[in-house]
Protein backbone atom coordinates (compact mmCIF):
# COMPACT_ATOMS: atom_id res chain seq x y z
CA UNK A 1 0.00 0.00 0.00
CA UNK A 2 1.53 3.28 -1.09
CA UNK A 3 1.89 5.97 1.53
CA UNK A 4 -0.39 8.97 1.18
CA UNK A 5 2.71 11.17 0.97
CA UNK A 6 3.50 9.58 -2.39
CA UNK A 7 1.82 11.21 -5.37
CA UNK A 8 0.76 9.37 -8.52
CA UNK A 9 1.97 10.93 -11.76
CA UNK A 10 0.55 10.26 -15.21
CA UNK A 11 1.62 11.17 -18.74
CA UNK A 12 -0.86 14.07 -18.62
CA UNK A 13 0.09 15.69 -15.30
CA UNK A 14 3.83 14.89 -15.27
CA UNK A 15 5.18 18.15 -16.74
CA UNK A 16 3.15 20.45 -14.53
CA UNK A 17 3.92 18.42 -11.41
CA UNK A 18 7.72 18.50 -11.75
CA UNK A 19 7.93 22.24 -12.59
CA UNK A 20 8.87 23.48 -9.13
CA UNK A 21 11.28 22.27 -6.49
CA UNK A 22 12.89 18.86 -6.19
CA UNK A 23 10.87 15.83 -7.31
CA UNK A 24 11.74 12.14 -7.06
CA UNK A 25 9.82 9.93 -9.50
CA UNK A 26 9.74 6.14 -9.08
CA UNK A 27 9.06 4.36 -12.40
CA UNK A 28 7.55 0.95 -11.68
CA UNK A 29 5.19 -1.82 -12.81
CA UNK A 30 3.09 -4.50 -11.12
CA UNK A 31 5.13 -7.34 -12.64
CA UNK A 32 8.51 -6.01 -11.48
CA UNK A 33 9.82 -7.83 -8.40
CA UNK A 34 12.61 -5.37 -7.54
CA UNK A 35 10.05 -2.52 -7.82
CA UNK A 36 8.00 -4.13 -5.07
CA UNK A 37 11.09 -4.31 -2.88
CA UNK A 38 11.85 -0.65 -3.53
CA UNK A 39 8.29 0.60 -2.85
CA UNK A 40 8.47 0.70 0.99
CA UNK A 41 11.77 2.58 0.78
CA UNK A 42 10.21 5.17 -1.53
CA UNK A 43 7.30 5.46 0.91
CA UNK A 44 9.73 6.07 3.78
CA UNK A 45 11.64 8.68 1.75
CA UNK A 46 8.33 10.46 1.02
CA UNK A 47 7.54 10.67 4.75
CA UNK A 48 11.06 11.82 5.67
CA UNK A 49 11.27 14.48 2.98
CA UNK A 50 7.69 15.71 3.37
CA UNK A 51 7.63 19.46 2.66
CA UNK A 52 11.17 19.45 1.20
CA UNK A 53 10.79 17.25 -1.88
CA UNK A 54 7.90 15.80 -3.84
CA UNK A 55 7.91 12.02 -4.16
CA UNK A 56 5.80 10.34 -6.84
CA UNK A 57 5.26 7.02 -8.55
CA UNK A 58 4.62 6.47 -12.20
CA UNK A 59 3.32 3.18 -13.60
CA UNK A 60 5.15 2.49 -16.88
CA UNK A 61 2.37 0.19 -18.20
CA UNK A 62 -0.28 2.87 -17.87
CA UNK A 63 1.96 5.77 -18.91
CA UNK A 64 4.19 4.94 -21.89
CA UNK A 65 5.01 8.48 -23.00
CA UNK A 66 7.13 9.90 -20.14
CA UNK A 67 9.23 6.72 -19.64
CA UNK A 68 9.81 6.74 -23.41
CA UNK A 69 10.94 10.37 -23.35
CA UNK A 70 13.55 9.58 -20.68
CA UNK A 71 14.54 6.38 -22.51
CA UNK A 72 13.76 4.18 -19.52
CA UNK A 73 14.36 0.54 -20.50
CA UNK A 74 14.63 -0.97 -17.08
CA UNK A 75 12.83 -0.63 -13.80
CA UNK A 76 12.91 0.30 -11.04
CA UNK A 77 14.40 3.60 -12.13
CA UNK A 78 14.27 6.70 -9.97
CA UNK A 79 14.65 10.10 -11.63
CA UNK A 80 15.30 13.27 -9.66
CA UNK A 81 14.10 16.56 -11.16
CA UNK A 82 14.97 20.06 -10.01
CA UNK A 83 12.65 22.83 -11.20
CA UNK A 84 11.57 20.74 -14.17
CA UNK A 85 15.07 19.68 -15.24
CA UNK A 86 16.42 16.14 -14.93
CA UNK A 87 19.10 16.33 -12.21
CA UNK A 88 19.98 12.74 -11.33
CA UNK A 89 19.01 9.09 -11.77
CA UNK A 90 19.20 5.87 -9.80
CA UNK A 91 18.82 2.62 -11.72
CA UNK A 92 17.86 -0.59 -9.96
CA UNK A 93 17.34 -1.53 -6.35
CA UNK A 94 19.47 0.48 -3.90
CA UNK A 95 19.37 0.96 -0.11
CA UNK A 96 17.14 3.75 1.19
CA UNK A 97 20.20 5.63 2.44
CA UNK A 98 21.53 5.79 -1.13
CA UNK A 99 18.30 7.41 -2.34
CA UNK A 100 18.49 9.93 0.53
CA UNK A 101 22.14 10.70 -0.26
CA UNK A 102 21.36 11.46 -3.92
CA UNK A 103 18.30 13.50 -3.00
CA UNK A 104 20.27 15.56 -0.46
CA UNK A 105 22.68 16.63 -3.20
CA UNK A 106 19.86 18.51 -4.93
CA UNK A 107 18.13 20.07 -1.93
Amino acid at each position, binding site marked *: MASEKVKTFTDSNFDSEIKNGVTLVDFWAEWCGPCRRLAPMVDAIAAEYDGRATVAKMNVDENPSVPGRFMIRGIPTLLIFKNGELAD*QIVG*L*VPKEEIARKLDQHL
Partner: protein
Amino acid sequence: MADRKVTIIGSGPAGLTAALYTARANLKPLLVEGLEAGGQLMLTTMVENYPGFRKGIDGPELMAEMREQALHFGTDLVQGNVERVNLRDRPFSLAFSDGKTVTTDALIIATGASARWLDIGCDRKLAGHGVSTCATCDGYFFRGKPIAVVGGGDSAMEEAIYLTRFASKVTVIHRRESLRASKIMQDKAFANPKIEFIWDSEIADITDLERGEVTGILVRNLKTGSLTDVALDGVFIAIGHTPNTALFRGQIELDEAGYVCTHHGTKTNCPGVFAAGDVQDHIYRQAVTAAGSGCMAAIDAERYLDGLPIPDETTDLAASLEAPAVNEMLKP
Protein backbone atom coordinates in the same frame (compact mmCIF):
# COMPACT_ATOMS: atom_id res chain seq x y z
CA MET B 1 25.76 -11.53 26.25
CA ALA B 2 25.09 -11.37 22.55
CA ASP B 3 21.73 -10.19 21.19
CA ARG B 4 21.47 -13.40 19.16
CA LYS B 5 22.80 -16.91 19.22
CA VAL B 6 22.82 -17.13 15.46
CA THR B 7 22.39 -14.59 12.71
CA ILE B 8 22.07 -15.38 9.01
CA ILE B 9 22.82 -12.85 6.31
CA GLY B 10 21.02 -13.53 3.04
CA SER B 11 17.56 -14.82 2.14
CA GLY B 12 18.05 -17.10 -0.85
CA PRO B 13 17.65 -20.91 -0.57
CA ALA B 14 20.84 -21.19 1.56
CA GLY B 15 19.89 -18.50 4.07
CA LEU B 16 16.26 -19.58 4.39
CA THR B 17 17.17 -23.26 4.84
CA ALA B 18 19.74 -22.32 7.51
CA ALA B 19 16.96 -20.29 9.17
CA LEU B 20 14.51 -23.19 8.98
CA TYR B 21 16.91 -25.62 10.65
CA THR B 22 18.20 -23.22 13.33
CA ALA B 23 14.63 -22.10 14.09
CA ARG B 24 13.52 -25.73 14.53
CA ALA B 25 16.48 -26.18 16.90
CA ASN B 26 15.07 -23.33 19.07
CA LEU B 27 17.98 -21.01 18.33
CA LYS B 28 15.60 -18.14 17.41
CA PRO B 29 17.68 -17.09 14.42
CA LEU B 30 17.77 -13.57 13.09
CA LEU B 31 17.75 -13.52 9.29
CA VAL B 32 18.77 -10.36 7.49
CA GLU B 33 17.05 -10.39 4.13
CA GLY B 34 19.27 -7.85 2.43
CA LEU B 35 18.47 -5.71 -0.54
CA GLU B 36 17.98 -8.47 -3.09
CA ALA B 37 15.63 -10.42 -0.83
CA GLY B 38 14.91 -13.95 -2.01
CA GLY B 39 18.12 -13.99 -4.00
CA GLN B 40 18.68 -14.86 -7.63
CA LEU B 41 15.58 -17.06 -7.88
CA MET B 42 13.43 -13.93 -7.58
CA LEU B 43 14.65 -13.01 -11.05
CA THR B 44 13.96 -16.37 -12.70
CA THR B 45 10.84 -17.80 -14.23
CA MET B 46 10.10 -21.52 -14.06
CA VAL B 47 12.38 -23.70 -11.89
CA GLU B 48 12.17 -27.23 -13.27
CA ASN B 49 14.95 -28.89 -11.30
CA TYR B 50 14.00 -28.34 -7.68
CA PRO B 51 13.03 -31.79 -6.39
CA GLY B 52 9.45 -32.17 -5.25
CA PHE B 53 7.91 -30.00 -7.95
CA ARG B 54 7.53 -32.27 -10.95
CA LYS B 55 5.60 -29.63 -12.90
CA GLY B 56 8.12 -26.94 -12.03
CA ILE B 57 7.60 -23.99 -9.74
CA ASP B 58 7.90 -20.26 -10.31
CA GLY B 59 11.17 -18.92 -8.77
CA PRO B 60 9.52 -16.16 -6.67
CA GLU B 61 6.81 -18.60 -5.55
CA LEU B 62 9.42 -21.12 -4.37
CA MET B 63 11.16 -18.39 -2.38
CA ALA B 64 7.87 -17.20 -0.87
CA GLU B 65 7.22 -20.78 0.30
CA MET B 66 10.70 -21.12 1.81
CA ARG B 67 10.29 -17.76 3.56
CA GLU B 68 6.92 -18.73 5.06
CA GLN B 69 8.35 -22.07 6.21
CA ALA B 70 11.27 -20.33 7.97
CA LEU B 71 8.86 -17.84 9.59
CA HIS B 72 6.51 -20.62 10.68
CA PHE B 73 9.19 -22.14 12.92
CA GLY B 74 10.12 -18.83 14.54
CA THR B 75 12.74 -17.10 12.40
CA ASP B 76 12.99 -13.34 13.00
CA LEU B 77 13.22 -11.71 9.59
CA VAL B 78 14.52 -8.19 9.18
CA GLN B 79 14.64 -6.30 5.92
CA GLY B 80 17.80 -4.30 6.66
CA ASN B 81 21.06 -4.22 4.84
CA VAL B 82 24.30 -5.06 6.69
CA GLU B 83 26.90 -2.40 6.02
CA ARG B 84 29.81 -3.52 8.25
CA VAL B 85 30.75 -6.59 10.25
CA ASN B 86 33.26 -7.09 13.04
CA LEU B 87 34.36 -10.73 13.14
CA ARG B 88 37.52 -10.04 15.17
CA ASP B 89 35.78 -9.54 18.53
CA ARG B 90 33.36 -11.88 20.32
CA PRO B 91 30.44 -11.74 20.07
CA PHE B 92 30.51 -10.75 16.39
CA SER B 93 28.75 -7.50 15.56
CA LEU B 94 26.84 -6.38 12.50
CA ALA B 95 26.17 -2.72 11.69
CA PHE B 96 23.12 -1.98 9.54
CA SER B 97 22.82 0.82 7.00
CA ASP B 98 20.15 2.48 9.18
CA GLY B 99 22.64 2.75 12.07
CA LYS B 100 21.42 -0.18 14.21
CA THR B 101 23.84 -2.83 15.54
CA VAL B 102 23.28 -6.49 16.37
CA THR B 103 25.68 -8.82 18.19
CA THR B 104 25.69 -12.56 17.57
CA ASP B 105 27.56 -15.65 18.80
CA ALA B 106 27.47 -17.45 15.44
CA LEU B 107 27.13 -16.08 11.94
CA ILE B 108 26.00 -17.82 8.75
CA ILE B 109 27.00 -16.03 5.58
CA ALA B 110 24.55 -16.70 2.74
CA THR B 111 24.92 -13.49 0.77
CA GLY B 112 25.05 -15.28 -2.58
CA ALA B 113 26.37 -13.86 -5.81
CA SER B 114 25.24 -11.09 -8.12
CA ALA B 115 25.23 -10.84 -11.89
CA ARG B 116 28.53 -9.83 -13.42
CA TRP B 117 28.78 -6.95 -15.90
CA LEU B 118 31.04 -6.68 -18.91
CA ASP B 119 34.27 -4.81 -18.27
CA ILE B 120 33.87 -2.20 -20.97
CA GLY B 121 32.48 0.55 -18.71
CA CYS B 122 29.76 1.75 -21.06
CA ASP B 123 27.52 -1.19 -20.12
CA ARG B 124 26.97 0.08 -16.56
CA LYS B 125 26.43 3.63 -17.75
CA LEU B 126 23.62 2.40 -20.03
CA ALA B 127 22.03 0.26 -17.30
CA GLY B 128 18.31 0.94 -17.30
CA HIS B 129 18.59 2.44 -20.77
CA GLY B 130 18.96 -0.72 -22.79
CA VAL B 131 21.60 -2.73 -20.92
CA SER B 132 20.31 -5.18 -18.33
CA THR B 133 21.29 -8.23 -16.31
CA CYS B 134 17.68 -9.27 -15.72
CA ALA B 135 15.48 -10.48 -18.56
CA THR B 136 12.41 -11.01 -16.41
CA CYS B 137 12.71 -7.44 -15.10
CA ASP B 138 13.35 -5.56 -18.30
CA GLY B 139 12.36 -7.79 -21.24
CA TYR B 140 8.99 -6.06 -21.43
CA PHE B 141 10.59 -2.85 -22.74
CA PHE B 142 11.80 -4.56 -25.91
CA ARG B 143 8.56 -5.63 -27.54
CA GLY B 144 9.11 -6.02 -31.27
CA LYS B 145 12.75 -4.93 -31.02
CA PRO B 146 16.02 -6.73 -31.79
CA ILE B 147 18.27 -7.41 -28.80
CA ALA B 148 21.44 -9.29 -27.85
CA VAL B 149 22.19 -11.74 -25.05
CA VAL B 150 25.82 -12.12 -23.99
CA GLY B 151 26.91 -15.50 -22.61
CA GLY B 152 26.81 -19.22 -23.35
CA GLY B 153 25.67 -20.87 -20.12
CA ASP B 154 22.29 -22.07 -18.87
CA SER B 155 21.24 -18.66 -17.60
CA ALA B 156 22.15 -17.04 -20.93
CA MET B 157 19.98 -19.59 -22.79
CA GLU B 158 17.13 -19.18 -20.32
CA GLU B 159 17.25 -15.41 -20.78
CA ALA B 160 17.45 -15.70 -24.58
CA ILE B 161 14.46 -18.05 -24.73
CA TYR B 162 12.44 -15.92 -22.33
CA LEU B 163 13.23 -12.75 -24.29
CA THR B 164 11.85 -14.20 -27.54
CA ARG B 165 8.41 -13.56 -25.99
CA PHE B 166 9.03 -9.84 -26.50
CA ALA B 167 11.92 -9.26 -28.90
CA SER B 168 11.69 -9.49 -32.69
CA LYS B 169 15.08 -11.21 -32.72
CA VAL B 170 17.57 -12.35 -30.08
CA THR B 171 21.24 -12.56 -31.03
CA VAL B 172 23.36 -14.62 -28.64
CA ILE B 173 26.97 -13.49 -28.50
CA HIS B 174 29.37 -16.04 -27.08
CA ARG B 175 33.13 -16.05 -26.68
CA ARG B 176 33.52 -19.68 -27.80
CA GLU B 177 32.36 -21.78 -30.73
CA SER B 178 30.07 -23.94 -28.62
CA LEU B 179 27.75 -23.38 -25.68
CA ARG B 180 28.51 -24.26 -22.08
CA ALA B 181 24.78 -24.63 -21.39
CA SER B 182 23.22 -28.02 -20.62
CA LYS B 183 22.05 -30.16 -23.56
CA ILE B 184 18.36 -29.55 -22.85
CA MET B 185 18.80 -25.76 -22.81
CA GLN B 186 20.93 -25.84 -25.97
CA ASP B 187 18.27 -27.86 -27.79
CA LYS B 188 15.57 -25.40 -26.74
CA ALA B 189 17.66 -22.42 -27.89
CA PHE B 190 18.69 -23.97 -31.24
CA ALA B 191 15.06 -24.88 -31.98
CA ASN B 192 13.85 -21.32 -31.40
CA PRO B 193 13.51 -19.53 -34.77
CA LYS B 194 13.94 -16.09 -33.15
CA ILE B 195 17.40 -16.90 -31.72
CA GLU B 196 20.59 -16.41 -33.76
CA PHE B 197 24.17 -16.99 -32.67
CA ILE B 198 27.39 -15.05 -33.16
CA TRP B 199 30.24 -17.37 -32.14
CA ASP B 200 33.81 -16.64 -30.98
CA SER B 201 32.91 -13.05 -30.30
CA GLU B 202 32.60 -10.43 -27.60
CA ILE B 203 31.08 -6.97 -27.31
CA ALA B 204 33.78 -4.34 -27.79
CA ASP B 205 31.50 -1.33 -27.38
CA ILE B 206 27.88 -0.37 -26.88
CA THR B 207 26.46 2.75 -28.53
CA ASP B 208 25.10 5.36 -27.96
CA LEU B 209 26.37 6.68 -24.63
CA GLU B 210 25.78 10.30 -25.64
CA ARG B 211 22.14 9.77 -26.49
CA GLY B 212 21.70 7.70 -23.34
CA GLU B 213 20.15 4.70 -25.05
CA VAL B 214 21.30 1.55 -26.79
CA THR B 215 21.34 1.86 -30.56
CA GLY B 216 23.83 -0.87 -31.39
CA ILE B 217 26.88 -2.87 -30.46
CA LEU B 218 30.35 -3.32 -31.85
CA VAL B 219 31.17 -7.03 -32.02
CA ARG B 220 34.76 -8.24 -32.07
CA ASN B 221 35.53 -11.69 -33.47
CA LEU B 222 38.15 -13.12 -31.14
CA LYS B 223 39.64 -15.43 -33.80
CA THR B 224 39.96 -12.98 -36.68
CA GLY B 225 39.92 -9.68 -34.77
CA SER B 226 37.31 -8.35 -37.20
CA LEU B 227 34.82 -5.75 -35.95
CA THR B 228 31.15 -5.64 -36.90
CA ASP B 229 28.43 -3.11 -36.07
CA VAL B 230 25.10 -4.61 -35.14
CA ALA B 231 22.08 -2.31 -34.75
CA LEU B 232 19.82 -3.32 -31.88
CA ASP B 233 17.89 -1.86 -28.96
CA GLY B 234 18.94 -3.87 -25.94
CA VAL B 235 21.79 -5.91 -24.46
CA PHE B 236 21.20 -8.55 -21.78
CA ILE B 237 24.31 -9.71 -19.96
CA ALA B 238 24.41 -13.29 -18.63
CA ILE B 239 28.12 -14.00 -18.19
CA GLY B 240 28.12 -15.35 -14.68
CA HIS B 241 28.27 -14.00 -11.18
CA THR B 242 30.54 -12.44 -8.59
CA PRO B 243 30.19 -13.44 -4.92
CA ASN B 244 28.84 -10.82 -2.51
CA THR B 245 31.77 -10.86 -0.09
CA ALA B 246 32.99 -7.24 0.01
CA LEU B 247 31.54 -7.03 3.53
CA PHE B 248 33.89 -9.72 4.84
CA ARG B 249 37.08 -8.93 2.94
CA GLY B 250 40.10 -8.92 5.23
CA GLN B 251 38.25 -10.70 8.05
CA ILE B 252 37.74 -14.19 6.65
CA GLU B 253 39.58 -16.16 4.03
CA LEU B 254 38.40 -15.62 0.45
CA ASP B 255 39.73 -17.28 -2.69
CA GLU B 256 41.16 -15.39 -5.67
CA ALA B 257 37.73 -14.87 -7.22
CA GLY B 258 36.36 -13.58 -3.92
CA TYR B 259 34.41 -16.68 -2.85
CA VAL B 260 34.42 -17.60 0.86
CA CYS B 261 36.76 -20.55 1.48
CA THR B 262 34.95 -23.26 3.42
CA HIS B 263 36.37 -26.49 4.80
CA HIS B 264 35.06 -29.49 6.78
CA GLY B 265 31.52 -28.68 5.78
CA THR B 266 30.64 -25.00 5.98
CA LYS B 267 33.33 -23.74 8.37
CA THR B 268 35.29 -20.65 7.42
CA ASN B 269 38.73 -19.92 8.86
CA CYS B 270 37.01 -17.86 11.58
CA PRO B 271 35.49 -20.15 14.25
CA GLY B 272 31.77 -19.41 14.62
CA VAL B 273 31.42 -18.07 11.08
CA PHE B 274 29.88 -20.44 8.51
CA ALA B 275 29.10 -19.95 4.84
CA ALA B 276 26.48 -21.55 2.60
CA GLY B 277 25.18 -21.26 -0.93
CA ASP B 278 26.64 -19.44 -3.92
CA VAL B 279 28.84 -17.20 -1.78
CA GLN B 280 31.13 -20.22 -1.25
CA ASP B 281 30.28 -22.26 -4.35
CA HIS B 282 31.24 -21.39 -7.90
CA ILE B 283 30.83 -24.94 -9.16
CA TYR B 284 27.31 -26.26 -8.51
CA ARG B 285 25.32 -23.02 -7.94
CA GLN B 286 21.92 -24.72 -7.81
CA ALA B 287 18.93 -23.87 -5.64
CA VAL B 288 19.02 -27.39 -4.24
CA THR B 289 22.75 -27.38 -3.44
CA ALA B 290 22.39 -23.94 -1.84
CA ALA B 291 19.54 -25.23 0.32
CA GLY B 292 21.61 -28.31 1.18
CA SER B 293 24.60 -26.28 2.30
CA GLY B 294 22.28 -23.98 4.27
CA CYS B 295 21.17 -27.03 6.23
CA MET B 296 24.81 -28.02 6.77
CA ALA B 297 25.65 -24.51 8.04
CA ALA B 298 22.74 -24.67 10.49
CA ILE B 299 23.97 -27.99 11.89
CA ASP B 300 27.57 -26.77 12.04
CA ALA B 301 26.48 -23.56 13.80
CA GLU B 302 24.42 -25.47 16.34
CA ARG B 303 27.32 -27.79 17.14
CA TYR B 304 29.61 -24.77 17.51
CA LEU B 305 27.16 -23.12 19.94
CA ASP B 306 26.91 -26.33 21.96
CA GLY B 307 30.68 -26.48 22.19
CA LEU B 308 30.65 -29.80 20.36
CA PRO B 309 33.35 -30.78 17.94
CA ILE B 310 32.22 -30.08 14.41
CA PRO B 311 32.58 -33.23 12.35
CA ASP B 312 35.44 -33.24 9.94
CA GLU B 313 36.85 -35.96 7.79
CA THR B 314 38.71 -37.50 10.74
CA THR B 315 35.54 -37.87 12.81
CA ASP B 316 33.20 -40.79 12.49
CA LEU B 317 30.07 -39.06 11.20
CA ALA B 318 27.69 -41.75 12.41
CA ALA B 319 28.99 -41.38 15.97
CA SER B 320 28.75 -37.61 15.88
CA LEU B 321 25.12 -37.80 14.77
CA GLU B 322 24.23 -39.41 18.07
CA ALA B 323 24.58 -36.06 19.80
CA PRO B 324 21.05 -35.23 20.99
CA ALA B 325 21.08 -31.68 19.61
CA VAL B 326 21.69 -32.92 16.11
CA ASN B 327 19.08 -35.61 16.43
CA GLU B 328 16.65 -32.87 17.45
CA MET B 329 17.41 -31.02 14.22
CA LEU B 330 17.15 -34.08 12.05
CA LYS B 331 13.75 -35.19 13.36
CA PRO B 332 11.17 -35.27 10.58
